[in-house]
């Protein structure tokens, strides 16, 4: 594979694979889902996680930023016992 036009190569691969997926029958998609133990028809099925139930990424990011700011603001923990001067 030529690396100099990798983005063009990737686009070609993605477009071709996408066409394949669009052409696949519903039956095949559901068959594969069942093969891996998914039950898409069941309410709350993990098969549709991220689709009909999604993580609120903006709130998650805000929470992570707040936690990291809190960590930066907290006093540094004292060194362990091995760092203490001998009595």
């Amino acid at each position: 594979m030529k690396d100099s036009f990798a983005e063009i190569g990737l686009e070609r691969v993605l477009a071709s694979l996408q066409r394949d997926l669009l052409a696949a029958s519903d039956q095949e998609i559901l068959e594969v889902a069942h093969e891996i133990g998914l039950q898409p028809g069941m309410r709350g099925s993990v098969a549709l996680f991220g689709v009909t139930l999604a993580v609120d990424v903006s709130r998650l990011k805000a929470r992570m930023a707040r936690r990291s700011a809190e960590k930066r603001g907290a006093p540094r923990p004292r060194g362990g016992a091995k760092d203490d001067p001998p009595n």
Partner: protein
Amino acid sequence: MKPFDILKSWPVDLVTDPPARRALEMGLVSTADLLRLKVIARLQARGLPPEIGWSDLLQEAFTRVLDGSRRHPDGVPMVAFVAGIMRSLREQYWRAARRGARQSRKLLAEIEITGTPEPELLDPEPSPERRAMALQEMAALNQLFADDEPARHIIAGLYEGWTPEEICAARGISKVDYDSTRRRIRRALVRAGLRFSP
């Protein structure tokens, strides 16, 4: 414990009525359509920075459908239409990122899509970052087929832009073998695309 209950116990905020669910409830798509779009979204998210997830891409595409900013043309299946929006969003993201430099990356929701759902989308001036991500994604795709050499050969042929006939001729495979390998590739992608992860 049902899967839904497990998810509710996660230390994250869940959106229980995302645009894709509303589209399902409105009868615009079926459950099978959504499964297919989940796999396609995972595919389209390849080569995007990690902060843009496949779910963001999918939900943003449905937002465009529901708010009317993208009009569904007569005769185009909804799944193909939504897939086209995701592809446009992906490409427009890179254009916006290149124009706006790294420090002002646009959010997906701020990206305006112009043109038809299936225009020639390749950015004429791709960034080194995009190229590096593309190489990384190609390596990941090949890894997915680590045990399937014919599949890797076909993917390599697609990468080069070869037709099925050219791939068969270059690799010395029959049309029947080519078709059955494409089927294996498709099923492996569906398996990988439906796996559980946020």
